[in-house]
């Protein structure tokens, strides 16, 4: 039986005067991995930001339901506590806030929301260190301020580490592969795959097929000009890589 976790219906959204999302429809069921592929500037990051409640976007019509609840009325932190996670295309540097402090506040906020007790600090740090090893982020890096002095690849690995620690029900990965060399790509892909347990859902946003060779999606959607122009299985990613986006943009 399929249970929808995310239902986006006829979504229109703008930034300032500029309409970016235009009639977007997508349903993701529990356990499914979807990939959205599309050219630069199509509005992929805009969509992920809207799903996470980033201020500055205006939804003009349509609806988004998450686990059956109206997502658009929730604050970003409520969404995270409900189980949404966004691995950002451009992770933000936060000088003065160590990774461990940041993650501890995040984990405890989510636990509190679920009525669970706070984690013991020592246990927590141990756990983050263990997880960090999987993403080749050592204890020294985890002590540093969030993303400060991290290379592009290290930032992406830290996003993946955060996902592994926060264990969301639904993760959006916005260009999780950009700027990664092949080794780092494998590390991140393994991290994603290890979270793939048949219950957790994901939306992988990318404009190359590269990552999808390692994390094989159940569905692939071509996204152009603010909405999905074609959907298919994993073979669609291969087709896209060969033909490019121009063809699909013409189709619409």
């Amino acid at each position: 039986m399929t249970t929808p976790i995310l239902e986006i219906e006829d979504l229109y959204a703008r930034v300032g005067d500029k309409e970016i999302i235009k009639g977007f429809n997508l349903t993701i069921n529990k356990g499914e991995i979807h990939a959205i592929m599309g050219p630069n500037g199509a509005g992929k990051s805009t969509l992920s930001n809207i799903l996470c409640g980033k201020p500055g976007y205006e939804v003009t019509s349509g609806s988004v339901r998450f686990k059956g609840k109206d997502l658009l009325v929730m604050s970003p932190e409520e969404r995270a506590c409900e189980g949404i996670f966004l691995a950002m295309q451009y992770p933000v540097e936060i000088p003065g806030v160590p990774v461990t402090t940041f993650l501890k506040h995040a984990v405890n906020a989510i636990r509190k929301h679920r009525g669970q007790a706070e984690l013991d600090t020592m246990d927590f740090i141990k756990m983050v260190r263990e997880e960090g090893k999987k993403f080749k982020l050592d204890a020294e890096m985890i002590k540093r301020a969030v993303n400060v002095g991290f290379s592009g690849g290290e930032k992406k690995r830290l996003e993946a580490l955060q996902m592994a620690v926060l264990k969301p029900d639904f993760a959006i990965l916005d260009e999780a592969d950009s700027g990664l060399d092949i080794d780092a790509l494998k590390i991140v892909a393994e991290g994603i795959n290890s979270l793939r347990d048949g219950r957790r859902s994901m939306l992988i946003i990318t404009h190359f097929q590269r990552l999808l060779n390692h994390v094989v999606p159940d569905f692939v959607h071509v996204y152009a000009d603010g909405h999905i122009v074609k959907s298919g299985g994993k073979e669609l990613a291969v087709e896209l890589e060969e033909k490019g986006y121009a063809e699909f943009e013409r189709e619409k």
Partner: protein
Amino acid sequence: MAGLLQQVSLPGEEIPWLNEIRRRGRMVFEATGIPTAKTEAWKYTKPRELGGDDFVLALPSNNLDASIPNLAFDSYRICFENGIFNPRQSILPQGVEVLPLIEVIMFHPEYRTLINANIQLERFPFAALNSAYLNEGVFIHIDSKVEIKKPLTILYHTDNKNQNLLCNLHNLILLDEQASAKLIEYHCYKGELKSRYFVNVVNEIYLRRGAFLKHYKVQDEAFKSNHIALNCVDEASNAVYQAFCLQKGANIARNETHVLLKEEGAFAEINGAYVMNGWATLDTTTDIEHLAPNTISHQLVKGVIGGDAKGVFQGKIHIAPLAIKTEGTQLHKALLLSDTAEVDVKPELEIFADDVKCSHGAASGELDEDKLFYMRSRGIKEEEARRLLIDAYLEDVISKIEDEKIASWIRLMAK
């Protein structure tokens, strides 16, 4: 002016030297009055309220029946309660001279020449007022080569339920050659948040050759009080003065530090932070005079200002013609949390020597929306995210405090 200048009888009136200092203080304050916006040095910080209130000079009868606030670190303690030294609540170190200032004036006239030696009363109206009542305060003398490991905390604890107390304090701190110590000043209040009182402090600090003083201060006065402090530091060769001041209370507050780097190799680091969400004005004023070659000064002050509050930073670096190969740096940064918060900054460089390294900078901004969203997207509530970002903002200046226990205490006080 009736409020601040009163005829009171003070100890030591039989000493002509003391009478003369008090008379001169009174005369100068009568002439200057409470500074107004027309006084260049008080352009941004306006203590005019001090003219309206009736003050009563703190006397031993204004005793305070409060327990001493706990300190988060092991420390010697010099207690002032409602502006009066209380030896019973104090814990003094062995082998260090800690005496009420008035006793030193009476019985050790050899130290009198240190008092007001570097302070031009005409420039500092409140120091003039301070001299008019010269009496309360302590003398701390650390002998040559003596190192006091445990910090020495001067605790100023004020409650004042009924009257507008004027707490007038003058401390004289002398570190002989190669002596070293940590001095902490903690200004706090008991009970009534709305107490009106006026704490007027002058610290005269003399660091002889190679002496080393770390001076930390937390100003956490009641919200309707006024706090004016002048720290006048005189440094001989290779002396080191490291200061950090956190201001978070009072209605009008100024912490002014005047450093005279008189001999070669003298070093000063004047850091600070201020945090305010109400309506107060918190002022940090510095004047660093490089008077000899190879002297170094660094200043870093960061503020977090919200509500209708105002932050003021006036920082001056003066490099005298002889003071070649000196280095002076200064940086002020402020985080504005509301549209009505204000920061006024006046940096001033006066360089009369060649071959010096000198820099200053100032920046102010708001909390970064992208950082806030990043944290919230991980589940952290907006308020908590703001708090974390504010703490992080102050972290680079607080982390300059080398003593970890004191740094933790100040970190906590800044929250």
